[in-house]
């Protein structure tokens, strides 16, 4: 991934700050995803455990919206998908951050809101029209060359100069693999909620953690459900990006959050570029349903911040 010279200059100026931010938290194990793909020859060391080249990613607004592909999967019904995603995101957004001041809000300053179903079934970012951050299932054909190997994949789109996230889409491979949605997870099974809680961490800008107990740890053990619940390290990670005071920690320092507007960049749309996918009519949660969910979340957020 090549940077523009302006971006290179910005990196040069900000790496020192970034490094000091990183070194100031060496006791923690979490890492943040940055605008620069990790060099495959990079070897982590105790002094340099995270790849910190580039700008760390973050959502600027206080609220982020997401949608679910309307027909979900043969394995995972739409309602189960919605429940799983709401549970997964809530695990992150309800994190209680350690604060020095008891009177301050201790909640991570990010909310993730369900905006309804979309018919569009593509990973896509439209730079000139509406978007949706879509959770999608691939029952028929996994649209990548490694169909036998990958279970889940999150693609993020961002500004390379600032690290601000513009879009995130999550694909789940239900074509080749079986996921456990409800009930006990067999010892050789894959727990949907664990996987989407982990992927939700990536959605929010976190990379893998070195903490073996963390949801963001890089290895998932079949049959396990422990990734459903955040570890203290995960909480530190989310709180470091989305501080309770409403700032976002960037490579250039803390910047104020944007408004609580979950509308995706350039407006909400299920349209898949020029191919003509359209937003679903909104069966279980049409316009009124979305409105109700959003109002409920606004109330919850206000209560949490009071």
């Amino acid at each position: 991934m090549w940077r523009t010279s302006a971006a290179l200059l910005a990196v040069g100026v900000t790496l020192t700050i970034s490094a000091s931010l990183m070194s100031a938290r060496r006791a923690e194990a979490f890492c943040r995803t940055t605008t620069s793909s990790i060099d495959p020859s990079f070897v982590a060391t105790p002094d340099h455990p995270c790849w910190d080249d580039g700008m760390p990613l973050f959502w600027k607004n206080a609220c982020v919206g997401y949608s679910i592909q309307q027909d979900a999967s043969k394995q995972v019904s739409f309602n189960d998908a919605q429940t799983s995603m709401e549970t997964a995101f809530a695990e992150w957004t309800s994190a209680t951050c350690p604060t020095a001041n008891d009177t301050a809000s201790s909640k991570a300053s990010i909310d993730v809101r369900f905006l309804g179903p979309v018919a569009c079934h593509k990973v896509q970012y439209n730079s000139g029209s509406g978007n949706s951050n879509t959770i999608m299932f691939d029952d028929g054909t996994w649209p990548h060359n490694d169909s036998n190997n990958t279970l889940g994949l999150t693609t993020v789109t961002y500004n390379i100069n600032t690290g601000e996230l513009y879009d995130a889409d999550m694909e789940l491979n239900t074509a080749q693999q079986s996921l456990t949605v409800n009930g006990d997870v067999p010892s050789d099974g894959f727990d949907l909620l664990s996987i989407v809680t982990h992927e939700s961490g990536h959605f929010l800008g976190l990379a893998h953690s070195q903490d073996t107990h963390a949801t963001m740890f890089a290895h998932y053990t079949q049959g396990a459900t422990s990734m459903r619940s955040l570890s203290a390290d995960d909480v530190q990670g989310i709180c470091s990006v989305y501080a309770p005071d409403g700032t976002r920690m960037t490579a250039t320092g803390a910047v104020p959050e944007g408004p609580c507007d979950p509308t995706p960049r350039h407006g909400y749309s299920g349209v898949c570029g020029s191919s003509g996918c359209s937003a679903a009519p909104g069966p279980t949660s049409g316009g009124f349903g979305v409105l109700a969910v959003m109002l409920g979340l606004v109330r919850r957020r206000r209560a949490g911040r009071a």
Partner: protein
Amino acid sequence: MMWRMRWRALLIAILLIVPAHASVSFTVLLDALASESSAAVVMTPFDQKSVWEDGRIATYTHVRVERVVAGTIASDVWIKTLGGAVGDIGQMVEGEAVLRAGQTSLLFITSYENNLVVAGRGQGQFPITADGAGVKRVHKNLHVGALLAPNPSSLARIRAATSHPSAAAPAGDVLDGRTVDDAATEIASSWTRTHVAH
């Protein structure tokens, strides 16, 4: 007390170092990787361009093939990976191979939708670096996303086909730290099992 805590923290940090990036994938086995590849090569990228394709950014990297380890391929080819940057917008697809100009890797390559791509995504890329004695060695790519144990069905299929000890072992573990020549011999052996026999 403070020193003890620092040493403990250091020890924990050393023990817990893991790759930092992710999708969720099965660990790829050597024979599975070989069987889904059309060539294995030592290559060095020298040019790259990223473009928008239907709302996604794809990067095409022009690589010079320095050694064909197995299979057949031209001396310089374009390899497609997902993600990249166009203007101010970047896109990252976790677990993809990362090809950087001037950085030599051993790559397993396959064809997908009329393009050459890296088989097994990041798991099909093995960066090559020189050790302290100047010997070039192949390394496991540590940044391939979250990994699961090998796919049970893949494991069973390979074990049914061969009892060779490397066949059903993770490709990264088999090749990690070996010299390029040694790795090439191992891959050639796997190639014979997975391509010639079928």
